[in-house]
């Protein structure tokens, strides 16, 4: 546990000093929301129907950029190779990076939900708390696969282009289930609808995290 905390700590301290990732991710997400609010703002009904999609479009594009940069930091001065020299298992190294990436995506989601409520004049009220479930679980799946593919593409010249091309199709099941959960919350449907999608999403998350732990070693050693 101490090792995991130390691995997450190094990413958070670096980010706290530069605020490079959170700032750039938040700005990209905000700009995407502004464009979408300008496009859909005249039709409140359309905006309401598209709300789950609007949230995930902003989150997924901004988070993909952030993940690419987060892994680029591992390549600078070959810092990741310094970690690979330690006796820590590759799975634990993965969990450390995943944990840090997940926190970044969760922070981004908070920014996106707040900006969405303001720009679209959406009174989320008590529903904001319920939104945390599908968005949070979606973030877990997104960060799990993003961490694995980020490590895979970070050493390539086209990493900023390659990561979204690989990540978005793979992570689609998590996004779709998250979208279903968000729609259930925003439409005020029965709790059972939310729980059903959340259960399936949690199962997908577990598969993604286990896959990441298993494959990370091959990705970074090849």
């Amino acid at each position, binding site marked *: 546990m*101490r*090792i995991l905390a*130390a*691995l997450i*700590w*190094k990413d958070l*301290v*670096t980010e706290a*000093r*530069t605020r490079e990732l959170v700032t750039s991710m938040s700005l990209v997400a905000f700009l995407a929301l502004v464009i979408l609010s300008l496009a859909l703002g005249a039709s409140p009904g359309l905006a309401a129907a598209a709300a789950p999609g609007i949230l995930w479009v902003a989150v997924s594009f901004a988070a993909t950029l952030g993940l690419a940069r987060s892994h680029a*930091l591992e390549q*600078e*001065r*070959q*810092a990741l*190779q*310094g*970690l*690979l*020299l*330690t*006796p*820590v*298992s590759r799975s634990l190294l993965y969990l450390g990076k995943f944990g840090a990436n997940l926190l970044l995506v969760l922070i981004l989601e908070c920014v996106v939900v707040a900006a969405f409520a303001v720009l679209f004049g959406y009174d989320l009220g008590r529903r904001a708390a319920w939104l945390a479930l599908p968005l949070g679980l979606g973030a877990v799946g997104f960060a799990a696969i993003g961490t694995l593919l980020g490590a895979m593409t970070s050493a390539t010249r086209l990493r900023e282009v390659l990561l979204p091309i690989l990540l978005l199709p793979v992570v689609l099941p998590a996004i779709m289930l998250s979208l279903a959960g968000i729609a259930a919350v925003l439409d005020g449907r029965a709790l059972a609808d939310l729980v059903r999608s959340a259960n399936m999403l949690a199962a997908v998350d577990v598969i993604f995290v286990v896959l990441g732990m298993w494959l990370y070693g*091959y990705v970074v*050693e*090849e």
Partner: protein
Amino acid sequence: MDPAGAAVHAEGLWKGFGRRRVLRGLGLVVAPGQALAILGPNGSGKSTLLRVLAAILRPAEGRVRIYGEDPFRVPGARRDIGFVTHEPMLYGGLSVLENLRLLAVLYGLADGWARAEEMCDRLRIARRAEPIRGLSRGIQQRAALARALLHRPRVLFLDEAFTGLDPEGVDDLARILRGFCRDGGALILTTHSPAEALGAAGRAAVLVGGRLGPARGLDGMQVDAVRAWYLDAAAGAMG
């Protein structure tokens, strides 16, 4: 030499990237207390070889043993490995001390914080509390050496480690390496400088085209003789 008693034992190492074969069935043995210099031109596979030996890159074929254990299968065997390259392998946003303390936790050192300070003192690292990315190349290289020695490894791999060091730093590194071997540590360094090989190692071998030639002793040789032998061996290997 009996492989079981070797500090580093590698055999049949093959490694490629895409269609390019970088290591071609290479093997070597280094005993505790020995230093082996691997000389080779640019692109001969020196860095790849050290990365495979240090368990950073997985070989396509062949095996590596560090004191009899496979560092890919037994993560604990990596405690015996220290590795210095021309890059510090440290996080630019963290200070030297923060990097060393992080690694001390990952290596499970009980005296990690004190050890981090000790290494900074020993290597005379100035501005140890400032982020790495703002430090000069020479201080970054000293920090890299501190990282490699932090956990008291028994095997040290050096990939062009003298690059970027000032004359004082070169002397410090040479002194540390001599002490390391005297205390029973095994050392493998890569270089294309016969002078560096002669200053740091008792034996040398030439790596060309992913194949390692036979090692020979350097005792009593002068730099010019080492250079002539290296050029002959390299030309012979290239056919």
